[in-house]
């Protein structure tokens, strides 16, 4: 057993570090949940893409650099350690792209992925509906067959990034007579400025429009913008869901950087004899280290925790992220109440972690039923 990187991996790390040192903006960008910040982050995606670092794990033909899982983990470590901006293209790169790579057509991949990598097209997810949150399979938005495509109608909500994004992807009920709620759904992509789309931005706790409600009224989607087989959208989407919850959405590198910043803050701002704070900081460092090593083990096993195992990861990183930020606010004392700054911004962001991508309650049900083999309860 070892933790050694190959010369190639070391070179990859050195390249990433050098490029980031040259290109990461010295001042933090404006919050990406604002119009101006969104534009700044989009421009940063362009810069990343020009350097070839926007989607390192994709094949080169789509704008990636064919990095291995381990290299991707290394990149994420370097990226967040360098204090680089959060990724406005995250939803596309980590949720939509894996689905396209697995289920999309060659035409779709060639058309969609390079524009996603460059930030030219920023994607929003459109899963939830007012009556379908945790119980996603109960969604009602409809896709009605029309010539050469589908007409989408209904309401989607909690659509992250949709206030300023270009396009969205989601599931729609196309075959309403299906025997089970998970059947008869179609996975479709659509522009947010299309005819029939109304975008109502929604402010998160601090008022920043981090998501939006989407009203769809006969929005035309050509067949070319359906992923996988119509009516089998749930199966198509599940690979995306596993990817969302697993390591990719919040990488070990991202959490390690957060815990590292916390430890640095503790060293400079805290009373070193305050063991209560010390214990919380140490736990954050330990858990971030655990997550990093867990990622290596997954990469060595040739898989990034998918399926039910992704649920373990989701609960772990979302609780760790919140603990890191709660500890930081406590460390900051009276300044911890102020709204502006990376820590409070990250705190508000982290508060949503146990909710999105499937609530942690749902994840624990999945862990208990699928990994531990406990009998299914009433859910579902």
């Amino acid at each position, binding site marked *: 057993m070892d933790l050694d990187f190959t010369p190639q991996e070391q070179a990859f790390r050195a390249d990433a570090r050098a490029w980031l040192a040259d290109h990461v903006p010295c001042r933090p960008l404006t919050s990406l949940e604002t119009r101006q910040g969104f534009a700044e982050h989009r421009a940063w995606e362009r810069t990343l893409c020009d350097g070839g670092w926007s989607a390192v794990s994709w094949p080169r033909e789509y704008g990636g650099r064919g990095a291995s899982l381990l290299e991707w983990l290394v990149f994420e470590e370097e990226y967040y350690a360098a204090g680089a901006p959060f990724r406005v293209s995250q939803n596309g790169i980590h949720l939509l792209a894996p689905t396209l790579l697995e289920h999309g057509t060659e035409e779709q991949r060639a058309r969609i992925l390079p524009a996603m990598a460059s930030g030219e097209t920023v994607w929003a997810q459109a899963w939830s509906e007012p009556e379908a949150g945790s119980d996603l399979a109960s969604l009602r938005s409809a896709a009605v067959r029309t010539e050469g495509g589908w007409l989408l109608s209904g309401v989607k909500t909690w659509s992250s990034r949709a206030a300023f994004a270009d396009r969205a992807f989601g599931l729609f009920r196309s075959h309403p007579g299906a025997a089970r709620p998970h059947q008869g759904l179609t996975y479709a992509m659509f522009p947010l400025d299309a005819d029939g789309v109304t975008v109502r931005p929604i402010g998160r*706790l601090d008022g920043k429009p981090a998501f939006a409600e989407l009203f769809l009224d006969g929005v035309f989607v050509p067949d070319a913008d359906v992923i996988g087989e119509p009516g089998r959208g749930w199966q198509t989407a599940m690979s995306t869901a596993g990817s969302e919850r697993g390591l990719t959405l919040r990488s070990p590198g991202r959490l390690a950087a957060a815990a590292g910043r916390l430890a640095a803050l503790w060293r400079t701002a805290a009373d070193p004899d*305050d063991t209560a704070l010390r214990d919380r900081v140490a736990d954050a460092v330990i858990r971030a280290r655990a997550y990093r090593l867990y990622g290596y083990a997954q990469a060595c096993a040739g898989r990034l925790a998918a399926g039910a195992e992704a649920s373990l990861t989701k609960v772990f990183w979302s609780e760790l992220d919140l603990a890191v930020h709660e500890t930081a606010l406590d460390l900051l004392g009276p300044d911890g109440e102020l709204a502006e700054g990376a820590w409070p911004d990250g*705190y508000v962001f982290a508060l*949503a972690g146990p909710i999105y991508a499937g609530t942690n*309650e749902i994840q624990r049900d999945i862990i208990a039923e699928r990994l531990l083999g406990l009998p299914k309860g009433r859910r579902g």
Partner: protein
Amino acid sequence: MRFLPDAEQTAFGRNLDRMFAAADTPSAVRAWARGEHGPGRELWARVAGAGVFGLAVPEAHGGSGLLPVELGVAFVELGRHAAPGPLVETVAAAVLLGRFAGDGLAGAWLPRICTGQVMASLAMPCGGPYALDADAADAVLVVSGDPADDLHLARDCDPVQASLDPARRLARPRDGELLATGPGVREAACCAADWAAFATAAQALGVGLALLDRTVGYARQRTQFGVPIGSFQAVKHRLADVLIGLEFARPLLHGAAVALAGRAPEASAEVAAAKVAACEAAYAAARTALQVHGAVGYTAEYDLSLWIGKARALRGAWGTPAECRAKVLHK
């Protein structure tokens, strides 16, 4: 022993509850968060009219004498309705100034605090460098120096900064006119700090109760997987824990009120115990409320957000949990 609110005290709380419910308080809070103080100021006048500020003012200056039990009852309701403004700070300022009764200061300020004409903010070393809602306040008092013997009327303040509770805006005051100095200021400030912590604890309890109420209501009617989410055991148990936290914070609050009323030497420790219990219970209520509501609870437009941010802010205001715990053991 009569360790329960009496009928009059209960009625006082119920009347405040009704008053806030009828006043469209959430709109006033949202306006306040935008820096529009008109509706909040109207609410303030009604709070004053109900006699709330007078509960921290001696009778000689237009108040009802210091009545912490009644003040606690009032602040639970202020928290329950997320009322905006430097309510705690005005009370603490009144207690501080009341300790100078006899000299001109108390006479100049206290009657106008009672009537709601003067909304005061206050910064003291034990509460951190910021004055709450300094832009809205008519007077910002500052206790400073080392030892903290000087009482200033702030000349002006740095620009207000937004906080994690949008209805709480913080500003660093600059010293201005020296109103008083000496150990008497320090002693009065210590007493005022206890009252500030006590009122904050009461407010936090009210915040927690409101969060629990709303979340239970939501869990009863919100359906997922074909059943109300309140029928899921994970939801039930979290809400049960919230209730336990709040129910056992309440007697500590009452105990602190009795200790303050009796000017008991252990009042500081009793207040600290109530503060940490009420604030931790309210913060747990906020985290649970958010989790049970899911995304809708995470939105600014849904009224729940008015309480969620406040629970976090009150936890640190006028004594962090760590400071309170230290006080409990070192009394």
